[in-house]
């Protein structure tokens, strides 16, 4: 219940935060929403010597469209996403995702940056971001800034491409094309649980045919899993029920679940298949202007 001792730092600017990280080295952790880190610290599964709190850096809390991208500041909270009209209207997959994360109280503080930077394959945004082909913007010492393709960001359980002295500052998502839709469907044992499995799907259509697609899966592998074959099989088709069935099977094959208290490997693959099928259908309906 009670974390070990640490020093708390509350930098006023992003640069100050990065400098702190740089100076303090591996003993320091970023405190964003705190809803992944503090529970681990209360169980003493994590005992960082320093916490660098970026939750009060209000310049990291924004949702805006710019230069062909939806740009989300790292400190946008899940409830911020849930309640954004722009998100509800143009990026329903993000609303789908944020509203199934943990519970409403957690979502009031938990940040999208933290959800991604934590590198937990059980978190929900990572798969969604894969399906959306997002770009992770990362700032480091001396004003350095780099953009990481989401496919290169997740390296293993709780392990990302983020350097020790870097801070994830923004997520960039390509703005949707003319006819596109996305959807995230999660199966959880109860509210507040991680996914047994979840499936994120995005589809773009041109002239009635699927021109591009993104399919990614939550909590069925050491990292979020992109189901590439499943994506490919949709391309060029009208995404008929038959094709959806094929893609769902391919997604199940692409998943790498391990059996645990949430279910056996076999069951989780079955769930991936079911959810992916449903998510493709819903994404298609949304692309066609439905809900």
């Amino acid at each position, binding site marked *: 219940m*009670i974390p070990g001792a640490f020093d708390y730092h509350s930098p006023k600017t992003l640069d100050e935060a990065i400098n702190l990280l740089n100076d303090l080295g591996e003993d320091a952790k970023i405190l964003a929403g705190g809803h992944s880190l503090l529970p681990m610290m209360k169980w003493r599964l994590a005992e960082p010597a320093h916490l660098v709190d970026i939750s009060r850096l209000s310049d990291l809390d924004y949702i805006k469209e710019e230069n062909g991208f939806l740009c989300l500041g790292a400190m946008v909270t899940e409830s911020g996403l849930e309640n954004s009209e722009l998100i509800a209207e143009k990026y329903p997959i993000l609303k789908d995702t944020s509203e199934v994360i943990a519970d409403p109280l957690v979502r009031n503080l938990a940040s999208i940056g933290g959800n991604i930077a934590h590198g937990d394959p059980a978190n929900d945004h990572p798969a969604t971001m894969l399906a959306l082909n997002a770009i992770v913007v990362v700032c480091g010492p001396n004003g350095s800034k780099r953009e990481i393709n989401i496919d290169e960001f997740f390296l293993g359980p709780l392990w990302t491409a983020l350097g020790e002295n870097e801070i994830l500052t923004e997520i960039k998502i390509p703005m949707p094309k003319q006819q596109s839709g996305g959807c995230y469907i999660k*199966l959880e*044992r109860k*509210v507040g649980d991680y996914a047994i499995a979840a499936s994120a799907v995005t589809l773009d259509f041109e002239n009635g045919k699927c021109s591009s697609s993104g399919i990614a899966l939550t909590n069925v592998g050491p990292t979020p899993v992109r189901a590439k074959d499943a994506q490919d099989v949709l391309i060029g088709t009208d995404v008929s029920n038959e094709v959806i069935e094929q893609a769902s099977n391919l997604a199940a094959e692409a998943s790498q679940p391990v059996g645990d208290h949430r279910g056996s490997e076999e069951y989780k693959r079955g769930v991936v298949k079911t*959810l992916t099928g449903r998510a493709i259908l819903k994404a298609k309906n949304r692309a066609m202007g439905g809900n």
Partner: protein
Amino acid sequence: MSKCKTSPEVGGMGHSVKRKEDARFIRGQGTYVDDVVRPGMVYMDIVRSPYAHAKIKSINTEKALAHPGVAAVITGETLKEYNLHMMPTLMSDTQMVLPIDKVCYQSQEVAAVIGTDRYSVADGIELVEVEYEPLPVVVDPFKATDSDAPIIRDDKEGQESNHIWHWEEGDKAATEEIFNNSDVVVKERIYIPRIHVASIETCGCVSEFDKATGQLTVWMTTQAPHAIRTVLALVAGHVGLQEDKIRVISPDIGGGFGGKVPVYPGYVIAIAASVVTGLPVKWIEDRRENLQADSFARDYHMDCEIAADKDGTLNGLRIKTLADNGYADAAANPSKYPAGMFSICTGSYDFKNAFVEVDGVYTNKPPGGVAYRCSFRVTEAVHAIERMVDMVADEIMMDAAELRMKNFIPKDAFPYHSPTGWEYDSGDYHAALQLAMDNIGYDELLKEQKEKRERGEFMGIGICSFTEVVGAGPSKDFDILGIKMFDSSEIRIHPTGKAIARFGTKSQGQGHETTYAQIIAEELGIPFTDVSVEEGDTDTAPYGLGTYASRSTPTAGAAAAMACRKIKAKAKKIAAHLLETSEEDLEWEVGKFSVKGVPDKAVTIQDIAFAAYTNHPQGLEAGLEATHYYDPPNLTFPFGSYIAVVDIDSGTGEVKVRRFMAVDDCGNIINPMIVEGQIHGGLTQGLAPALYEEISYDDEGNITGGSFMEYLVPTAVETPHWETDKTITPSPHHPIGAKGVGESPTVGAPPAIVNAVVDALSHLGVKHIDIPITPEKVWRAIHKNEVA
């Protein structure tokens, strides 16, 4: 309920008056144990074992003691100096307070750190270095009595295996005869897993010992403060604690459900620490400690068989059960009943005969077996019978409701003597089931199900017609460690007609401050708002065994009515004096005595109370008060019929409880609002183990389900909208005809839900699914043809 006898202002029985206790709770002004702060108070935290079975080679406290704020580390050796390292369990077994040689379950208490604040002691426990040597573990109770199984309780003289006790009830030979002569025998092994009460408040205490006076005061999360005080005096008399100088205070309790009946080692260590240091010591568990080490409930493996005829007549019942007690038999059962009231398992049906046997074994798991919102194993019994009845219906292809109706104990057969020796007080089972069926539209549901099945959709309807057994209990049969299970009420009427009433029970949310006042209002006509109710302080409350097993209304509630009747008898004498007439000429109507035939010539209970202190008749004692210790002549037998409707998502295996109709009969009702609230809560605590909750162990005895991440307490989203209704069949032997209700829904809901799920899958050949019914179990039944 028939018309109320009292006005809403008086608020006697049958009025849904608002709860008096809520005034403090809605303001955040309740006083729970962690809210108690004493001058100079220190804190305690506990080092726990990572192993399920291991030798303790050494405990090094040096680093912990060097940590700022840490004052002391207590080990088994420390306690042994005072002979307090072992304690008795409620079942007269023994249990370690802190170990000397070995640990026997994961998360067992190993040492305690005392320090100035919560944070220091939390650090301190990380710094206590314990060297363990792992021992082979016994996890599977079926292997516990294998010849090569390690003996867990090698500390007990004469304990040569892990078998603890054998218990049986019923006529074995006659039952066998019935089985041999019936058309159909249906068998199933049913497991009702380990679960936990998971009250939102965990356990804890503040123990304060005054070295100068020898006075020990303990504020603790207990449902039975008097019993705790007596046990303390019995086991710690040798260190100078005597009963008159022990005061146990049970403050506001944040949910108990049976989990706050046992004495946990943490309490004893905190008490010992305060006696040794002379300082107040606070110990509050965290959630993981609570789930991992405090008493579990259930964990019964039941081999069930029913013998029936093809026409649906139920003839015989046989159940052989293995009870996994963990490291010690620390069940909260009355002394004479090692398997509690499990033999009530013939349920609502008129079997010709039955035979039940239970064997208890030790395993390397935490001790327990508490009556979690359940009268001592009645949940297990009802689960077994209500599942088996459905299996018979399935086997002979008879409608599950029809089969029940055919075999119910008829209304005119009460008092009914069951083949396992119980005398059911009253019941009308047909009426309750019929009402549930009418309310939910049973026939339409059957039609809907048929149509859906043709479309490939999975929908199920499940019934549970349970009979409960509560109100422990008659002293000839029921005691805990020898203390008889009566309960008490002490009522004093003040001169101005207001009253204070004290009880041996202890509310943990049941609303005693309101309902007891209503009983007194009913009996004496004093408005319930004029009656203060106190419980939980052994210095002031009369002796009683506490609140669990739905016993408060059947015992202490009855005691209140009886005490009121004593008061009324005296009041009548005073009234005769005031009205200058004889007692025979007086008649009572709510709140006053009047002269027969002259209604204007009357004195109110308030007038009488005033006179009792200002103008009492010569020869009569002054004052107006009474105490009653109520020893019930029998238990009470509430019952009900529940119908669940579930929809199943075949793609994921998720079960959704679409509707749930609960018809309860708890006899006469004191406060319908409170009864309905208890039913909602109990149903939710029945939903939880049916679909979500379980504490299980891996092969090494490591717990799974030991935090709220894995112990899946349902939220408002998983919980359906409950539909409730009632029939009223008063208890013939209870002074106010009440029966108790708290646990009925927890007992009755799980089989209704399981029966509905199995019904939804029955056309696939599914006969049974053990709880919790996870989505995977359902998905496997549908997609992998895995049918039990």
